[in-house]
């Protein structure tokens, strides 16, 4: 036996890390590297995910510079803004990642038979969620820390704000986990998948609403928001509690701030205790339930028949004459309606799109009933172009991405027809209902049908926006692993759409007030038809790339 033989009694056994530590390292590696990466090169996978994460952090960092507008404002106003936005970003991130991290279907086979307690597994995952969300939070809050330090001249602000942000991350994670566990407990394992989706969508919606409403309130209250001077209901929103913590230790130290701070600590502690201690056992039940098949039976009066009928009646049957486009439409529609993973990413992703136009609409709506034409209505219409853009962008990713190899094996030279089917499904099932919803809201809000004409610029631009994700044949649905979705690459398209929406809405409102609106529509129609034709021809010429 050699001296280096690990079985030699002369060598002291190495200390074995605790299971929690091993699990935390495992889940962090899986999160950064991805679970479904294709390819041989181990070095490239983590690097690419890491690069994408770094890019995301960079964007958060830049976006955080908006805090500079709060220079000279009271600590409470700055803290409310920072916590509201952080709450939104963390809520969105945790809600969209929690499903994959907390309840991964394949994981039961890999880990449930190992000598690991469900509590240890849950804690390890929660630590990873909190850790990554803190990176995002830190990137976003960095500028705010300097603003707080600079405007209040208070060295305690950065320290207290970091602590309160950590508490906020724990609160967000605890809420998501608790929501799952309560769903499990109250509704049973049979409906877990559906409930998880619904719960996660609601958590994301709540996070976005809470994050979007509060900063605007800050601007509305005459640019000054002091604790105790705002509406009572603001104190019901979680970001205000954490802002109270900042204000108590590094701001006015008013009694109201202390009350909010106590509320923040107490509620977070309570949620963590219930989620990670009291109901930890339910987590194991949930993981087991995911591997059971009872919940995946489609009901008798199922979506399939509804979808079948939909594609067989005009005008959809005319639009889907091509059998490949129709098959792609049905596939995309089925995933938008049924697939937990897709729903969890699509619907929470779309919520912020709805909120921004509403804000513009409400801003132009005066309490006395009068309103400006402004650019609220045209902006709402054009901004809806973001729906197909975001929907198709998200739909490219799926846990079953390997199944899309069938498209490459099939006798098709390129992905054009598959992309068209997916695009039409997103237009029919996401963009059209949202357009109708916004039209209804505008009509109810303004009570003036003539203003609905201002949606025309958006409706004309919609087909062009919907083709953008397919440029270069990239819009093939369900063809990429979900890990690749953790990128900020879509951001560029979003910014582009936002710029176009602002410019076109401004032009529309100007032309409406000066009487050349219909000339603008004519010009836009010509440009849109030209762009649409060029993009379609380009897409038709795209060939399948080799899958190396």
């Amino acid at each position: 036996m050699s001296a280096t033989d690990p079985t030699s009694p002369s060598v002291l056994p190495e200390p074995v890390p605790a299971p929690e530590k091993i699990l935390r390292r495992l889940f962090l590696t899986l999160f950064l590297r991805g679970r479904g990466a294709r390819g041989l090169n181990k070095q490239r996978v983590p690097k690419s995910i890491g690069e994408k994460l770094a890019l995301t952090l960079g964007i958060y960092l830049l976006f955080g510079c908006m805090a500079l507008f709060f220079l000279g404002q009271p600590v409470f106003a700055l803290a409310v803004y920072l916590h509201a936005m952080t709450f939104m970003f963390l809520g969105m991130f945790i809600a969209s990642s929690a499903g994959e991290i907390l309840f991964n279907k394949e994981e039961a086979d890999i880990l449930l038979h190992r000598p690991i307690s469900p509590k240890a597994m849950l804690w390890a995952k929660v630590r990873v969620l909190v850790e990554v969300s803190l990176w995002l939070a830190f990137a976003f809050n960095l500028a705010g820390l300097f603003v707080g330090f600079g405007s209040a001249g208070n060295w305690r602000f950065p320290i207290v704000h970091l602590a309160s942000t950590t508490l906020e991350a724990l609160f967000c994670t605890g809420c998501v986990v608790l929501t799952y566990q309560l769903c499990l407990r109250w509704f049973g394992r049979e409906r877990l998948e559906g409930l998880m989706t619904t719960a996660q969508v609601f958590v994301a919606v709540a996070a976005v609403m809470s994050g979007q409403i509060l900063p605007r309130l800050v601007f509305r209250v005459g640019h000054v928001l002091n604790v105790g001077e705002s509406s009572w209901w603001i104190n019901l929103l979680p970001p205000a509690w954490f802002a109270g913590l900042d204000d108590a230790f590094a701001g006015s130290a008013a009694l109201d701030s202390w009350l909010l701070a106590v509320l923040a600590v107490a509620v977070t502690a309570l949620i963590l205790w219930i989620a990670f201690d009291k109901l930890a056992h339910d987590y194991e039940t949930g993981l087991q339930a995911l591997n059971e098949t009872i919940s995946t039976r489609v009901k008798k009066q199922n979506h399939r028949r509804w979808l079948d009928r939909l594609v067989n009646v005009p005008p959809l049957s005319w639009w889907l004459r091509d059998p490949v486009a129709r098959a792609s439409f049905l596939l995309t529609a089925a995933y938008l309606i049924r697939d937990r993973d897709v729903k969890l990413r699509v619907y929470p992703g779309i919520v912020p799109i709805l909120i921004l136009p509403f804000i513009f609409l409400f801003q132009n709506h005066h309490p006395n009933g009068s309103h400006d034409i402004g650019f609220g209505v045209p902006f709402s219409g054009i901004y809806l172009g973001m729906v197909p853009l975001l929907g198709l962008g998200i739909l490219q990713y799926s846990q079953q991405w390997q199944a899309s190899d069938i498209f490459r094996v099939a006798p098709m030279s390129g992905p054009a027809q598959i992309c068209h089917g997916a695009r039409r499904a997103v237009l029919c099932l996401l963009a059209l209902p949202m357009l109708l919803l916004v039209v209804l809201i505008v009509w109810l809000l303004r009570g003036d049908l003539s203003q609905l004409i201002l949606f025309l610029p958006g409706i004309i631009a919609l087909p062009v926006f919907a083709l953008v994700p397919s440029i270069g044949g990239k819009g093939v649905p369900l063809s990429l692993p979900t890990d690749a979705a953790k990128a900020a690459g879509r951001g560029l398209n979003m910014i582009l759409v936002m710029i176009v929406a602002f410019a076109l809405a401004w032009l529309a409102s100007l032309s409406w007030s000066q009487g050349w609106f219909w000339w603008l529509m004519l010009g836009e129609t010509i440009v849109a038809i030209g762009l649409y034709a060029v993009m379609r021809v380009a897409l038709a010429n795209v060939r399948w790339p080799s899958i190396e």
Partner: protein
Amino acid sequence: MMIVLDQLTKRFGTQTAVDALSFEIPAGQIVGFLGPNGAGKSTTLKMLTGMIEPSGGRATVCGYDLQREPIEVKRHVGFVPESGAVFESLTGLEYLEMVAALYGIPQNAARARIKQFIAFFDLSFETLTDKLLGAYSKGMRRKVVITSALLHNPPVVFFDEPLDGLDANAAVGFKALIQTLAREGKTIVYSSHILDVVERVCHRVIIIDKGRLLLDGKPDELVAAHSAGTLEKLFTQLTGGAELERRAEDFARTFRP
């Protein structure tokens, strides 16, 4: 000849996965395509089905050139990939109808063919219409994937580990099916690690390692020529498996947990 490979090569960067592979397969033949892990079998099959582009050489399937007429090649081949991946949020019927549409088969004709396959595989139509694929057992999912590969009645079919997940009865049925298909004139390329099945079912075996052709011939003739006794022994002789057996014995002797 239904399949012709002429110096077919695939390189991934500096690594050569398939190295100037050449062989020909006539109609009606069942060919066992064998090799150890990483030998280049799946890469070859993916090239022959048009999923990845060759780096060199040429190949024809049913007389169509792989690089010049890839769509015609795809129209004439069926492929059961090793992954067996399906869209789990579709029902079995939805998935099969989607695949049929990709091959231009009308819905009614597709449904009639699907019914034939489900009867053969002993699946219930209710299961196929009411259950999402995510809820299927591995074997049931494999049956759906095999059906999807044969739905358009291709003259050439590539199977990559098709028996994975099938129970004994289904495996027996499947073997009978491919023999029937071959008798009808279809060319079957069958890649598997279950060598006794290959030995019993295949008319011919092609063994590759490190992307290169090692052996090509009838199983019984190859076994006899190398005095190996069985195809499995021949395979281990050729691909270094004998050395592995010795190492396993050493390991079992010395392993102390």
